[in-house]
C-alpha cells in the first residue's frame, strides 16, 4: 500500500496525529451467513485480486480448504455442522479480518505505521514498516493476522483498501454469486441488515441478528447470523470480543508512567548524590587500618 493516504485516523506506535485531513464515509462489509452457499468464490477472488497464491495443501476430510488463514489466504470459509432447534444445520462462515473500530492489532503493534486505520474504518497493514514481532497476533481478539514464512511480515485482509479508495467494492463482494457479501456505507449496511433480519424472523429464525460487537466498538465487517444468540456455533465466533485488560495494561498508560518512573530514578540519584555526597572510607578507618 505504497500510495500516500490522507485519511488516516490512527497509526500504530505513534503518539502524534496522523495525516487525516481527508474525511471519508465509514464503510462496512456485510456477510449474510444465511445466504452463503460455501462456494468459496470469495476465497478465489481474494487471491486473484491480491495476487497471492497459497501452497497446495492436503485434504483433511472437511470442506475447510485451506484449513486456516495464512499469509496468502486472507479469507477462508469455515464449515460447521450444528444441531439446532431446527435440526441439523450447515453453518458456513467466511472468516477474515473484522476491521474493528478498536483494533487490538493496532494497539499492540510496536512499529510506527505498520498498522493504520483509515477514516472509512478499514484497518490496514503496511508491511514495509512491519518488523515481524507478531504482537498484532497477540492483540487480535479474532485470531486473524498471520506471519509469512517467506518474509516474516504479518498479513491479513485489507478489505481491498486499494479498490475501496478507487470507489470499487472489495473483490469478495464483487464476486459473491448469491449476494451474501454486500458492501457500502456502514449506515446503509446496518439498515440493510435490519431488513434481512425482519425477513429471517418472518421465516422462523427468531434469533436472527447482526454481529457488530460492541466490545471492539463495532466492526467494519459484520455478520448477519440466523442464530445471533449463539455466535460461537459459527466455528467459534467470539461472543463478546474485546481488546481486553491485558492489552490495555500492556499498551495503555502503564508504559509512559513507567518511563517517567525510570527518568525520575536518574533525578533521584542525582539529588541524593548532591545532597549527601559520596560514601567514602572514613578517616578513622583509614587511620586504624593504616597503623
Amino acid at each position, binding site marked *: 500500500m505504497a500510495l500516500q493516504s490522507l485519511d488516516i485516523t490512527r497509526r500504530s*506506535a*505513534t*503518539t502524534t496525529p496522523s495525516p487525516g485531513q481527508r474525511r471519508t464515509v465509514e464503510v462496512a462489509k456485510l456477510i449474510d451467513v444465511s445466504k452463503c452457499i460455501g462456494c468459496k468464490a470469495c476465497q478465489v477472488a481474494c487471491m486473484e485480486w491480491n495476487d497471492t497464491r497459497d501452497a497446495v495443501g492436503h485434504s483433511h476430510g472437511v470442506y475447510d480448504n485451506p484449513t486456516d488463514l495464512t499469509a496468502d489466504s486472507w479469507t477462508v470459509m469455515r464449515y460447521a455442522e450444528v444441531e439446532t432447534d431446527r435440526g441439523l444445520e450447515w453453518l458456513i462462515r467466511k472468516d477474515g479480518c473484522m476491521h474493528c473500530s478498536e483494533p487490538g492489532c493496532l494497539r*499492540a503493534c*510496536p*512499529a*510506527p505505521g505498520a498498522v493504520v486505520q483509515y477514516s472509512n474504518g478499514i484497518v490496514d497493514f503496511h508491511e514495509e*514498516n512491519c*518488523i*515481524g*514481532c*507478531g*504482537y498484532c*497476533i*497477540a*492483540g*487480535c481478539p479474532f*485470531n486473524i493476522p498471520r*506471519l509469512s514464512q517467506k518474509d*516474516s511480515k504479518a498479513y491479513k485482509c485489507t478489505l481491498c483498501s486499494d479498490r475501496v479508495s478507487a470507489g470499487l467494492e472489495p473483490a469478495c463482494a464483487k464476486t459473491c454469486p448469491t449476494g451474501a457479501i454486500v458492501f457500502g456505507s456502514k449506515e446503509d449496511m446496518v439498515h440493510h441488515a435490519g431488513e434481512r433480519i425482519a425477513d429471517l424472523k418472518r421465516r422462523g429464525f427468531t434469533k436472527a441478528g447482526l454481529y457488530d460487537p460492541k466490545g471492539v466498538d463495532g466492526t467494519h465487517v459484520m455478520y448477519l447470523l440466523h442464530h445471533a444468540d449463539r455466535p460461537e456455533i459459527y466455528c467459534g465466533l467470539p461472543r463478546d470480543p474485546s481488546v*481486553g485488560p*491485558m*492489552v490495555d*495494561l*500492556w499498551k495503555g498508560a*502503564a*508504559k*509512559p508512567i*513507567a*518511563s517517567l*518512573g*525510570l527518568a525520575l*530514578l*536518574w533525578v533521584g*540519584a542525582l539529588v*541524593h*548524590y548532591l545532597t*549527601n*555526597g*559520596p*560514601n*567514602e*572510607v*572514613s578517616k578513622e*578507618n*583509614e587511620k*586504624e*587500618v*593504616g*597503623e
Partner: protein
Amino acid sequence: MKPDPETLPRFTASERVNHWLVAIVFFLLAFSGLAFFHPYFYPLNQLFGGGTWTRILHPFFGVALIFFFGGMFFRFRKLSKMTPADREWLKHARELAKGDERNLPEAGKLNGGQKLMFWSLVTCVALLVVSGLVIWRAYLSFLFPAGVVRFSAVVHAAAGVVMIGLIMGHIYLAIWTKESIKAMVGGRVRRAWAKQHHPAWYRELTGRDK
C-alpha cells in the same frame, strides 16, 4: 606483578569476567527491548540495524543472558543467602543513605542490600526468560493461546522495567560508594575500604579488628 599487600582480594577474575559479560548483554537487552517498549524509545532500534534486526536479535541476546546470568547465579547464590543480620542491615539502609552508619550491623562479604539486589535480579530474569520464550513469535508463540501470550507480554514489560530500575540503582550505588568499582575491575580493595563497608568480611579475612 605481585598484588599490593595493602589490598584484599574481593572478586576472582572469572567472577569479574562473568559480571561484565552480564553487564554487556544487559545493555544490549535493555536498549533493544526499550525500542519495543514504547514509541518514545523506538529510535533505539537504529543501534541494532533497524526495527526488524532489533526484533530478530533481542531474543538471542536473551539466550546469551540465560547462560551468563546463570553463571552469576551459581557463583553467588550461596554467598547471597539472607541472614537475620542482613535483614537488620536492611532496616538501617535508609540511615546509611543519609550518611549515618552508627546503627548499621556489620556486613559480611555482601551486605543485605547487595543480597536483596541479587535475589530481585534473579526473580526478574526468571520472569523475563519464561515470558520472553512465550512471546518469541518466530519459534515458540504458536505453542500458546493468545491469552497466555498477552499475559506474558505484560509480565515481560513489567519485569523489564523493574530490572532496568534495579540496574540503575546498582550502578548508582557503585558510583556513590567510592572505590567499589575497583573491586569489580581489578578484583582487589584497600583494607580500609573493606573495614569500612564489609567489617565482618574484613575480620574473617584478616583475623583482626583493625
